[in-house]
């Protein structure tokens, strides 16, 4: 009865479908390896991408985590599909799996991949460069004697650092401390980071930028990740931005590294200083604006609420901030930016990053946003 009705309406019936399947040619050509599979050779773009990271990092796809390939025996007769509840369940599950596991953005390792080892540490430098991560970020501050060191704050982080005698550190500002004093008197990474309970706990000295440069030089140029340096200039507690830029880019220019680092900062004047210094050295420095600017320590919650209100009312605008800064790309705060913000800035920016985010659910959720890269402590996710 149903088949008659289908035929009367001009739709193919079950018998028509079976006949059609029987007439299909059997193609058993072997399929090649999936492009972008984990372990594929990493390629780093030596020139700024026109649309950020898309297409530059072949190992970004994680579709293989969900995809399963099943071979069906080919016989003379293929039974027609039956849409049982189980079939529907599997179909919905497959769609959900593909949606959840679809990865549309690349990854930038936050602070050297702080989910694996202490942030900005020697272990992070070695580990991240030994990995297949396509982009790795570190933070840089200058010491009193203008030595760039990898550290996330303008002061020694009391939560992560101790004195050599294993005493808690007080207010040790990098601007007031020479590199030799830092090297001789303090160790960081030997205290477990409560944010990353699975990360290795390794006590070590503060790492100078020179070590990162040497480690990069030791790698084959094609295997070098893109380096993002967050230049944490803070008025009154840092050297001026021009000095900052000269010390960082000067060291880079003396190295064998062809690709300059991507400079990340939350103040346009910092980005300006790096662009100008790079220009005088003949380096084309890409810059990323961190938006919005939040206080370095303390007051984040109140500041975030204020920003959130201002953003929702249209008083603060990432498009305007990006335009005014002259940066090539923007890094949006996951707590404050909206999906609409990311879509709007994508029309103006060369690339849009979002982060840092650390939890798997967050990374997957934000990966569906129109952003080119997610900044995360664990780029393997």
């Amino acid at each position, binding site marked *: 009865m149903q088949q008659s009705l289908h035929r009367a309406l001009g739709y193919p019936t079950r018998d028509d479908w079976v006949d059609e399947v029987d007439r299909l040619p059997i193609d058993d050509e072997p399929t090649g390896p999936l492009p972008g599979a984990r372990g594929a050779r990493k390629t780093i773009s030596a020139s700024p991408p026109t649309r950020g990271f898309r297409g530059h990092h072949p190992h970004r796809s994680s579709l293989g985590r969900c995809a399963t390939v099943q071979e069906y025996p080919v016989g003379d007769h293929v039974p027609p599909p039956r849409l049982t509840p189980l079939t529907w369940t599997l179909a919905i599950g497959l769609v959900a799996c593909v949606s959840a596991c679809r990865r549309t953005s690349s990854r930038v390792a936050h602070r050297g991949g702080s989910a694996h080892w202490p942030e900005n540490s020697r272990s992070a430098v070695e580990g991240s460069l030994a990995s297949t991560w396509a982009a790795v970020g570190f933070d840089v501050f200058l010491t009193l004697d203008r030595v760039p060191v990898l550290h996330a704050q303008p002061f020694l982080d009391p939560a992560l650092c101790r004195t050599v005698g294993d005493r808690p550190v007080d207010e040790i500002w990098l601007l007031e401390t020479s590199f030799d004093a830092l090297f001789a008197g303090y160790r960081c990474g030997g205290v477990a980071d409560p944010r990353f309970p699975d990360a290795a706990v390794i006590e070590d000295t503060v790492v100078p930028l020179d070590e990162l440069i040497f480690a990069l030089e030791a790698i084959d140029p094609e295997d070098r990740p893109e380096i993002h340096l967050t230049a944490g200039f803070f008025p009154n507690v840092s050297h001026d931005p021009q000095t900052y830029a000269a010390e960082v880019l000067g060291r880079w220019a003396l190295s064998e590294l062809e690709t300059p680092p991507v400079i990340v900062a939350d103040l346009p004047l910092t980005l300006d200083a790096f662009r100008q210094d790079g220009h005088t050295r003949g380096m084309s420095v890409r810059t990323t604006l961190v938006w919005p600017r939040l206080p370095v320590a303390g007051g984040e919650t109140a500041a975030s609420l204020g920003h959130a209100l201002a953003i929702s009312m*249209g*008083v*603060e605008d990432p*498009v305007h901030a990006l335009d005014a800064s002259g940066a090539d790309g923007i890094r949006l705060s996951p707590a404050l930016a*909206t999906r609409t*913000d990311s879509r709007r800035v994508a029309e103006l920016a060369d690339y849009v990053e979002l982060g840092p985010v650390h939890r798997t659910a*967050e990374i997957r*959720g934000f990966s569906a946003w129109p952003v080119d890269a997610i900044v995360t402590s664990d780029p393997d996710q």
Partner: protein
Amino acid sequence: MMHAALFSIAASSGLQLDRVEVIADDPGTYLTDEVPLLAARPGGTLLRGVAQVQPVLGWGEHFTLGLSLSSITPGLEVSTGTDGLGLLVAMPTRLGLPSGALIAATWRRGPLWADIGMRAASGATWHAPQYSDLRVAPTVGIGWVPGGARD
């Protein structure tokens, strides 16, 4: 502060609470952009949810003014009666700057208010009052009507 001022002006000019839109049409992105992140960051999603809840004041037969932390939305709602179908036309603003337009069919029954329609939304801000990125999308709103507000 501006909302408090508007509320006080409203109270002195005979306005009354018409409804509270729990899922508001403006900005109208909560269901599509924020709810999918509920498992990932429940606190942030709930805060965004609170920010978009919109008390709507009404005066006269048809005029409404929605006031949420996300937007200020003057509107015109024409309905067939206390209960039943109606038509809503509104202009969402961001601190007074028009950011789009909304047209929706509304439905009331007892304490329930709902609407379904289309909205044109832009990212216009006071820094960049431009409408080149105007996007049209469907919208759904659900609200609670306190008893006899429009009677």
